[in-house]
């Protein structure tokens, strides 16, 4: 995981000047004092506002390359672009389109910003930084300027590898959202999904079958990386709450399905806490929000039922008792209820039940011919998204548990399935066939701001990390 030490800096003049200022302070007191508390910010320079109550307008041009080589310039350009996209994603700021920046000459340094020109463009805030390369390492100094006050509301310096410039942008975006909008951003979160993009096949005794492996990618689809290499069917991946493990269903062992928990940064062999055998098959894991338990589907009692176990496989509990199908569990935000699919009424519908399985399940879909894949939102929202049949395909619907109102997230553009909430509940990921192949998209919870995440192969069942 990211190692970040928080270090706040106030821009100063030269180091000598700073020392001189503190000397003057000490000289006046002429005795040892505790360090003075940070100065109050100048009024109006701390939080960027629009002055009119609407979202503040931000501009993010390409960052400045402090060293003049092509690689630094490319990094500086990438950081600017990605940061603009990250800030646009949360819709807390109005992002001034980048093609309108052409008339403004690029600043040669952070000390020479043409604030008047940015003011003309309507910018309330300007995010810009300076990129310096040292071998394979990069240092990025960034400012969020209050354009009207012509000073920095936020200043920070970051160092890291030149191999992943996007990560600088994601970090800066999350920081700005936290400090300026009191919002937890998702720019450093990741998606996991299964995909057939590598075109692998397994040759069985008779059949030649196309299989899937598990991948992760940045939330915006960049940096896809393959997690499984076992050349069998791997599906339904879900992140653990600490983001260090992925649980998934795999047929890797003698071709029967079991749940595997893989600590993806350790390289250790995955564990199978549900203890599948050639007879006991386990599918569709779902981590509880506190990361201590896994709900899943198993055939161990003779038909597909929902079970809960601790993450290490202990304390197995059966949740449903119905001779038909009970499938696809998902945890409530407080971890005390489970939503799932059941055909007990004659067709697949969404139900909720307490996480001990003591009470009668309650059906929540009343107007669906066919519904599956409930996914319960994180707090502070209390909603269940699912795929409901509309015509030949599916659309993502969102059921508000408190009000009982259901809203459509998608509207018949291809078939839309497998919804997953972002960790803040402000966005969802899902799969759609609207472009032909099966691709993963992310979208705001109001259905606005659709972004295509995957670009190759067919991709399934996304899940969004914290």
């Amino acid at each position, binding site marked *: *995981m990211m*190692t*970040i*030490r928080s*270090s*706040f*800096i*106030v*821009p*100063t*003049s030269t*180091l000598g000047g*700073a020392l001189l200022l503190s*000397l*003057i302070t*000490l000289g006046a007191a*002429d005795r040892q004092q505790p360090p003075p508390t*940070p*100065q109050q910010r*100048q009024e109006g*320079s701390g939080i960027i506002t629009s002055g009119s109550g609407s979202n503040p307008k931000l501009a993010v041009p390409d960052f400045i390359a402090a060293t003049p080589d092509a690689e630094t310039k490319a990094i500086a350009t990438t950081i600017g672009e990605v940061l603009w996209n990250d800030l646009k994603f949360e819709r807390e700021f109005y992002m001034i389109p980048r093609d309108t920046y052409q008339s403004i000459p690029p600043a040669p340094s952070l000390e020479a910003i043409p604030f008047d020109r940015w003011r003309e463009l309507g910018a309330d805030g300007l995010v810009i930084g300076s990129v310096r390369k040292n071998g394979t390492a990069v240092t990025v100094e960034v400012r969020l300027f209050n354009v009207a*006050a012509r*000073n*920095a509301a936020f200043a920070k*310096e*970051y*160092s*890291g590898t030149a191999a992943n410039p996007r*990560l600088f942008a994601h970090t800066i975006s999350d920081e700005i959202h936290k400090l300026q909008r009191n919002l937890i951003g998702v720019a450093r979160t990741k998606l996991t999904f299964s995909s057939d993009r590598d075109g692998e096949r397994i040759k069985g*005794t*008779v059949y030649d*079958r196309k299989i899937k492996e598990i991948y992760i990618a940045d939330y915006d689809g960049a940096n896809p990386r*393959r997690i*499984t*290499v*076992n050349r069998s069917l791997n*599906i*339904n991946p879900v992140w653990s709450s600490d983001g260090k493990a992925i649980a998934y269903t795999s*047929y*890797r062992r*003698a071709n*029967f*399905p079991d749940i595997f928990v893989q600590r993806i*940064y*350790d390289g250790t062999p995955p564990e199978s806490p549900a203890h599948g055998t050639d007879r006991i*098959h386990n*599918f569709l894991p779902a981590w509880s929000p506190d990361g201590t338990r896994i709900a899943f589907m198993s*055939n161990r009692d*003779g*038909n*597909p039922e929902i079970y809960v176990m601790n993450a290490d496989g202990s304390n197995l509990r059966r949740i449903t008792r119905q001779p*038909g*199908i009970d*499938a*696809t569990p998902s945890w409530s935000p407080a971890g005390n209820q489970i939503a799932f699919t059941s055909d007990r009424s004659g067709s*697949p519908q969404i139900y909720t039940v307490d996480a001990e399985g003591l009470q009668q399940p309650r059906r929540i879909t009343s107007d669906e011919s066919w519904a*599956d*894949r409930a996914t319960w939102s994180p707090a502070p929202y209390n909603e269940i998204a699912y795929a409901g049949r509309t015509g030949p395909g599916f659309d993502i619907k969102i059921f508000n548990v408190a009000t009982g109102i259901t809203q459509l997230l998608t509207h018949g553009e291809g078939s839309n399935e*497998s919804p997953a909430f972002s960790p803040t509940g402000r966005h969802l990921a899902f799969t759609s066939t609207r472009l032909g192949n099966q691709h993963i998209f992310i979208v705001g919870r109001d259905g606005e701001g659709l972004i295509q995440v995957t670009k190759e192969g067919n991709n399934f*069942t996304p899940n969004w990390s914290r």
Partner: protein
Amino acid sequence: MPRHRLFVASLLALSLAAAACHGKKPPVARPTQPPPESEMPAARPPAPPEPIAEPRPVTVPPEPSVSSADMGSLDDINKKGILQPVFFELDRIEISSEGQAVLAKNAETMKQYPTWIVSIEGHCDERGTAEYNLALGERRALSVRQYLVTLGIASDRLRTVSYGKEFPFDPGHTESAWARNRRANFVVTAK
């Protein structure tokens, strides 16, 4: 300020700075006056840059595959289709009368070859969700196994596995393709 006072003050400042350097030094902002509005902030702030790093995932090599003896002639048995599949109605697991006839024949064959171990694969057409179809395929496979047991086949000769809609037999998007995909498929896995 008198020169000697400045000297003492700078000694004091330097020793404080030195003291701060010993042991753990958390990154500390140097609190100063913000520059006057007309003055542009210059140069680099003194605090150390914040490190950015992200771990890279590590893949694990696959487990060695379980090989069954004598795969060659097993391939022949399965290619010949000696054990025929059973087909299902949309979203259903009931075995039709045609299915019952197929299973009666399959049971007879399995009694002729009492050492055969058989895997019953449950499959679905593409129209349901991938997740629910894992369960539907499971019920289809279990349903067929149950029926064969009532026909006298020992249950430990019969494995089941659900593939949901993951492995269609017919990639088409027509009623006939879908009908071909809603099946319990037989694979002899050991003899």
